[in-house]
C-alpha cells in the first residue's frame, strides 16, 4: 500500500484546523465553507478505505514510523474490518454535525470550526492507532475540543457539564495510562526493549491477578466513555448542555470509542480477565438497558430522553460484545454504527426544534405533525430506527446482539445467566418503544396547544441535507447490512479465534511470558476446532 491514506486522513483535519486558525475572524462564511469542504474531502478520502479487500483478517493501509525510539513509541496506524466503519462513521458524521451546527452557532465560528476539526482528528486517530501510546494521545486529544464545544457553545449549565465530562473521562483514562505503562514495563522486562506496538504487546501473557487489575483499569476508562451504568451520569449533563453538533458527535462517535477500546485493546491484551469479567460487564450493560430506558421514559427534556436512550442502547452493545461470538460482536459493531446514525440524527432533530423554539421540553410541544409534516416524517423514521423496527438499521444490530447473547454459551445457548440477560435485554426492546413513542406522542400528536407552535417552519434545506444521508443509511443498513457485515466479519472471526487461543494460553499463565500467537496456534493441539468453537466459555477438553 503505497499511498498513505491514513496519514492523509489525519493530516487533512490537522492542517485544516491550522488553516482555520489563520483565517481572519471576519471571514465567517469562508471559514464555514472551508471547514465543511475539508471534512467532505476527508470523507471522500476515507471512502477509499472501503475499496480495500477485507476478506482476510488483518490490518490494511498500515504505516509504521518510529516516533520516540528510546521508548518504543511509534506512529503505527492501520484499519481492519472493525475500525473501518467507525472511521467512515466519523468522517461522515463530522461534516453533517458541523453543517447542522450553523443553525445555532452564530458566534465564534472560527473557534468552533477549529474545535471540530481537532475533534475529528482525535477521533480518527484513536480509531486507526495501532500503538497504545498513539492511541492514548489521540484519546486524550479528543477531550479538549469536546470540552470546549460543550463549555463555550453549550447551554445554561454548560460549564458544569463540560468540566464533569472532562474530569470523569480523565480519571478513567489516567488509570488506563498507568495500566498501559505496566504492560509496557512487563514487556520490557521480558523482551529487553520498550514497545507500545499493540501487536507486539499482544504476545505478552500476564498472570491472573495483574490481568484483573489492568483490565479493570482499562475497563474503567472505556466504561466511562461508553458510558456503562453506573458511570453514565456525565452523559445526560453533557448531552443536554452541548450544542447540537457537539451532541451529535458525542453520541455518534465519542461513545463508540469506549466499545472500540474494549475490542481493540482491553480484550486482546487481557483475555482471561475479559472472559471472566465480561459477563459482569454485560450484566451491567443489561442494567443499563433497562435503567436507561426507565430513566428516559420519565424525562421531560427531549434531549435528556435521547441521552438516556443512549445509555440503554450502549448497554445492548456491551451485551453483544461480551457475548464473544461472531454475531454478538459483529452486531455490536454494527449497532455502534446504527446508534451513531440514529442517535446522531435524533440529536439533529432535537436541534431543529430547539433552534425554532429554544425549548426542548416535551410540554412545550404537541401537534407538530400538522405544522411540520416533513419533520414528523423524518423524526418517525429515526424513531423507528432507534426502537429497532425491522427494515431499519436498528433491528439488524439488536437482533444480532440478542442472538449473540442468547448463543453465548452452548449450542442452544442457555448458560443460565446469559439466558436471563437475554430475556431482560429483550424487554429493553419493549421499553424502547415505550419511551420513544411517548416522546413522539407528546411532540407530534394531539392538537397544537401552544400558539407559538402554530407557524413553525418545516425543515429547511440545510436540515434536510444534513438528515438525508442518515435516513438513507437507516434503510441501507436495515435492508442490506451484508455490505457492511461482509467487511467486518473476517476481522471479527479472527478477533474471536485469537481471543480464544490467547484465553486458553492466558489462563495457564503463572509467570509472565512472551509467546507469539502463531507459535501458540502451532502448539495448541486441535487448534482448528478451537478456532471454530466460538463458545469461549467452555472447556476445550469437553
Amino acid at each position, binding site marked *: 500500500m503505497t499511498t498513505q491514506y491514513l496519514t492523509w486522513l489525519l493530516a487533512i483535519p490537522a492542517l485544516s484546523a491550522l488553516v482555520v486558525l489563520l483565517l481572519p475572524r471576519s471571514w465567517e462564511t469562508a471559514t464555514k465553507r472551508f471547514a465543511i469542504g475539508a471534512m467532505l474531502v476527508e470523507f471522500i478520502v476515507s471512502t477509499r478505505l472501503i475499496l480495500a479487500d477485507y476478506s482476510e483478517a488483518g490490518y490494511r493501509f498500515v504505516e509504521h514510523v518510529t516516533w520516540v525510539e528510546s521508548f518504543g513509541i511509534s506512529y503505527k496506524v492501520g484499519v481492519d474490518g472493525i475500525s473501518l466503519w467507525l472511521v467512515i462513521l466519523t468522517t461522515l458524521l463530522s461534516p453533517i454535525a458541523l453543517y447542522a451546527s450553523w443553525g445555532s452557532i452564530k458566534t465564534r465560528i472560527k473557534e468552533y470550526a477549529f474545535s471540530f476539526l481537532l475533534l475529528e482528528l482525535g477521533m480518527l486517530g484513536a480509531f486507526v492507532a495501532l500503538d497504545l501510546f498513539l492511541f492514548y494521545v489521540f484519546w486524550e486529544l479528543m477531550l479538549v475540543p469536546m470540552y470546549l464545544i460543550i463549555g463555550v457553545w453549550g447551554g445554561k449549565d454548560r460549564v458544569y457539564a463540560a468540566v464533569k465530562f472532562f474530569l470523569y473521562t480523565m480519571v478513567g483514562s489516567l488509570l488506563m495510562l498507568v495500566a498501559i505503562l505496566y504492560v509496557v514495563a512487563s514487556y520490557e522486562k521480558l523482551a529487553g526493549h520498550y514497545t507500545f506496538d499493540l501487536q507486539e504487546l499482544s504476545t505478552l501473557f500476564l498472570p491472573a491477578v495483574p490481568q484483573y487489575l489492568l483490565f479493570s483499569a482499562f475497563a474503567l476508562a472505556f466504561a466511562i466513555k461508553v458510558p456503562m451504568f453506573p458511570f453514565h*451520569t456525565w452523559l445526560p449533563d453533557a448531552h443536554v448542555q452541548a450544542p447540537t453538533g457537539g451532541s451529535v458527535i458525542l453520541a455518534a462517535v465519542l461513545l463508540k470509542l469506549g466499545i472500540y477500546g474494549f475490542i481493540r485493546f482491553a480484550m486482546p491484551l487481557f483475555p482471561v480477565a475479559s472472559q471472566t469479567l465480561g459477563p459482569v460487564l454485560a450484566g451491567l450493560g443489561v442494567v443499563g438497558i433497562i435503567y436507561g430506558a426507565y*430513566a428516559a421514559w420519565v424525562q421531560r427534556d427531549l434531549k435528556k430522553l435521547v441521552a438516556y436512550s443512549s445509555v440503554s442502547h450502549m448497554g445492548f452493545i456491551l451485551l453483544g460484545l461480551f457475548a464473544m461470538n461472531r*454475531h454478538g460482536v459483529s452486531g455490536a459493531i454494527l449497532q455502534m454504527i446504527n446508534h451513531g446514525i440514529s442517535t446522531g440524527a435524533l440529536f439533529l432533530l432535537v436541534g431543529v426544534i430547539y433552534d425554532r423554539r429554544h425549548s426542548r421540553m416535551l410540554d412545550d410541544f404537541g401537534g407538530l405533525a400538522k405544522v411540520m409534516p416533513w419533520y414528523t416524517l423524518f423524526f418517525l423514521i429515526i424513531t423507528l430506527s432507534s426502537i429497532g423496527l425491522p427494515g431499519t438499521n436498528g433491528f439488524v444490530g439488536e437482533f444480532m446482539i440478542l442472538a449473540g447473547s442468547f448463543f453465548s454459551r452452548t449450542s442452544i*445457548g442457555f448458560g443460565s445467566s446469559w439466558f436471563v440477560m437475554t430475556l431482560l435485554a429483550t424487554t429493553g426492546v419493549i421499553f424502547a418503544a415505550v419511551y420513544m413513542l411517548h416522546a413522539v406522542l407528546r411532540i407530534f400528536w394531539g392538537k397544537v396547544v401552544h400558539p407559538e407552535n402554530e407557524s413553525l417552519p418545516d425543515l429547511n434545506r440545510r436540515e434536510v441535507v444534513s438528515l438525508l444521508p442518515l435516513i438513507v443509511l437507516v434503510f441501507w443498513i436495515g435492508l442490506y447490512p451484508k455490505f457492511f457485515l461482509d467487511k467486518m466479519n473476517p476481522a471479527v472471526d479472527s478477533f474471536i479465534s485469537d481471543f480464544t487461543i490467547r484465553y486458553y494460553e492466558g489462563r495457564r499463565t*503463572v509467570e509472565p511470558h512472551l509467546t507469539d500467537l502463531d507459535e501458540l496456534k502451532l502448539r495448541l493441539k486441535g487448534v482448528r476446532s478451537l478456532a471454530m*468453537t466460538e463458545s469461549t466459555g467452555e472447556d476445550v477438553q469437553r
Partner: protein
Amino acid sequence: MHLEAPQQILLLLIILFPLGGAIINGLLGRYMAKGLVTLVGVGSVAVSFALAVASFVELYGLHHGVEEAALAYHFYEWFSLKLPGGTVVPVNVQFVMDSLSGVMTLVVTGVGGLIHLYSIGYMGEDEGYPRFMSFLNLFMASMLILVLGSSVPVMFVGWEGVGLCSYLLIGFWYENRDYAGAGRKAFVVNRIGDFGVLIGMFILVGVAGSFEFADINSAAVSGQFRPDFPLWIFGVAPSLATVACVFLFLGCTGKSAQIPLFVWLPDAMAGPTPVSALIHAATMVTAGVYLCCRLSPLFITSDVAMSIIAVTGTLTALLAASIAVVQREMKKILAYSTVSQLGFMFAAVGVGFFAAGFFHVFTHAFFKACLFLGAGSVMHAVHAHGDADIFKLGGLKKQLPITRWTFLASCLAIAGFPLTSGFFSKDEILLGAAAQIYRRDDLLMNSVGWFTLIGLTLAAVMTAFYMFRLYFLTFTGEYRSADQSGDHPYDAHPHESPPSMTIPLVVLGIGALGVGFLGLPHVVPVIGTHLSDYSWWGNWMEGSVAGHAVPEEMHIVNLASGLALAAMAIGISAAWVLYRNKSTDALTDRMPARLYQLAFDKWRVDELYAATIVNPIKKVATVAGRADMTFVDALMTKWPSFKVRETGRILARMQNGVVQMYGAVMVVGVVAVLAWFWTPHSHIEVGFEGTKVELTTPQGLGYEYRWDANSDGEFETQWAETPTTTFEYAQDDIRGVAVFISHVRSGVERRIQVTEEWTPVPIESVAPIATLAATERGFEVRIDGQDFVFRRPDPPTLLAGKEELRLPMSKGGRLGPARVFARPLVEATVEVRNTFGNTRRTTKEIVLPFPIAEAPSHASLMPPTREVVR
C-alpha cells in the same frame, strides 16, 4: 438458501407494488391530485391482487394431491448468524407461496383491495386521504411480507411492519391524543408479544440451525425439539418445543389479541373504519393464527403448549363474547367479537386442528370485514364519528337496504347459520375439540378437550346473541335519532352509501355466505353421507399445515354439529325475543346492575393491568429517573467531588500565614523523617535452592540481624551484619498445610487453611464440576496424613458417587475445572536492630514448594507443580 421450488418473481412484485404505492403517496401524495392518489393507492393493490391470483393459479397447477408444492423467490441474503460450532445461518430475504400462504395472500390482497375501494368513498373527503392511502398500502406490503416470508426473521419484518401500520392508522386522526394514545398502546402491547417472538426465534434457530420455516418444521418432525430445555423452570424441565412455542404464542397473543394481551384491540377502533375492517378484523390480527399454522409441525409436538393455546383461546372467546354482549357501540361490539372469534381460531389450533383454525381465519376475513364495512357504512350514513351507539340507531333497513342485507348475511355467517361460511368453519372447530375428548386418554388433554368444547359452545351462543342484538337494534324498529332528541343525536336523514362502498359490501357479503363451501366436510352430520372423498380445504392445506385427522366417527361429528346448531339457535332466538323491533336494552334490565357494569367496563382488565403492571413500572421508572440525577449522580460524582474540594479547602487553611507555624511544620517534617529511620524495617524474602531455603531481609545502614528460621523461639544465628541466612526445614518445623485452589477458567488462585478437622471451604472461585448442577458448590476439606480429603456435606457424594475425594498433598490435583494442590507451611522470623538500638521482629509464613520427607533426601524431591493438569 434456495428452496427447491420454482423461482417466481411475481412474489416479489406482489409486495413491491403496494410498497411503491405507499412511498409515492407518502412522499408526494400531498402534492398530487386526489384522483392520482386513488389510482396509485387502489391501483397498486389491484395489480398486487392480480399478480397474487396469477401466482396462485400457477401454484394450483403445481399442486398434486397431498404433495407439497410451493413457489419461491430468493431476493438476497440479508445477514447471517454464526452459531456455536461454526454453522453459518443465513437470513434470506426469500418469499414462498405454498398452499397456506397462497390462500392468505389472496385474502389479504382480495379483501384488502375491496377495503381500499371502500376507502375511496369513506375517506375521500378527509384531508389526510393521501396519507391514509399511503399507510394502507404500507400495511398491505407489510402484511404480504409477513405472509410470504419464508423464514422467521423475514416474517418478523412484516410482523412488526403491520404493527407499525396499525400504530399509524389507529392514530390516524392524530389531533385527538386519545386516538394517538390508542395507537401507542397497540404498538407497545404488540412489542411485548414481539419479545416472545424474538426469544422463540432464537430457540428455533438454535435447535434447527436454520431460520427457514421449512427447515424448522422438518427439524420438528424429526424430533429435534423433543429434548428438555436446559434450564429448569419452576422445578420442571419442559421440552424445547414447549418453551419455544410458549414464547412464540406470547407473540401471537399480542398480535392476535388473546389473553393476556388483548386489551389493545378494542381501543384500536379509534382508527377509521376501513382500518378496523382490514387490519383489526380481516388480516393483521389473524397473523398469530397464521404463525401457528406455519409452524404447526412444531406446535403439535408439544402437548403442553397446545393445551395452553387451547385454554387461552377458549377463555378469550368467552371473555370477549361476554363483554360484547353488553356493549352499546357498533365497532366496540365488533371488536370484541373479533377477539372472541380469534379465540375460536386459537382454540382450534390448540386442539390440533390447524386447518380448521385457518379456515376460520379465511371465512372470518369475509364476514368480519363485511360487518365492519357495514358498520362504517351505517356511521357514514348517520354521520357518526368514531363510533356509533346502537341505541341511537334502529330501523335503518329502510334507508340502507344494501348495507342491511350484507350485514345480515354476515351476521348469519358469524352466528353459524347452516350453510353459511361460519357454519362450516365453526363446526370444524367444535369437531376438533370433541375429537380431542374422544381420542386422547390422558387427563390433561381430555380435560382441555372438554373445557374447549363447552367453552366454545357457550361462546358460540353468546356470539349469535350479540350479533343479532346488534343487527336488530340497528336495522329493525324505529330510527331513534329521527326526532333529534337525546344527547348528540345522529343525522336525522340517513342515506345509502356510494357505490364505491357498497360494491365491497356486496362482494364480501356474498363471500360470507359462500366461501364456506370450500371447506365442505367429509361427512354430513346426522345423515352420515360422505359428500366427497375429502374436504377440498383440508386437502389443500395438508401440504403445508400439520394437524390431527378429521374424525369421521358419527357420534363425534353429531355432537359437534349439534352443539353448533343449538348454540346458533339459542343465541339468535334469544336476541329475536329481546331485541327485535325493540329500542331498549332488554338484557341489561334483567341483569344485576353491578354485573352489567363490570361487563360493560370490560371486566376492568385495563384497570387491573394499570394497577398491577403499568403503574408499578411507571413508578419504578419515575424513581429511576429521579434517582439518577440525585442518588446515582451524587454517589458517583457529586459526593466525591465535594469531598475532594472540601479536603482541599481544609488543607489550604493550614497555611495560616504565620512564619512560626511554617517553621513548626518543617520541624515536624524533620521529626517525621527521623522517626522513619528511628525504627528498623525488615521484610523477609525467600529463595529456594534445592531443599535449602534462602532467607533475606533488606540491608540497612548500621543494621544487625539474627534469624530464627523456623520460628521456634530459638535464634539460629547471632547478631550479625549479614542479612541473609540459609536453612533446611525438617518435618517438625511444619506449621500447617496450605491448600491452593485455583479457578482454571479465571486463573484466580485462593489459598485456604485446612486442619485435620473437616473445614468448610469458601470456594466461590471454584466452578462446579461438569457433572454437578450449578447450585451445588462448596466443599469440606481436611488433612489426613499426607493426603487431603474433600467431601461435599450435602449431598454426601462427590465425583462419580465417591464419598470423598482424596488428593495427595503437594501434587497438582484436579477438581472439575479447578486446580488444587497442597504445600507445607513453615514460618521464619528475623530480628533486626538498627544503629539507634531499636529492634523489630518480623515473621513470615513460607509455603514450601516441595514436600518434606522425614529425613531430607534429594531423591524424593518433586519439582514445583503449578502447571495445569490437563
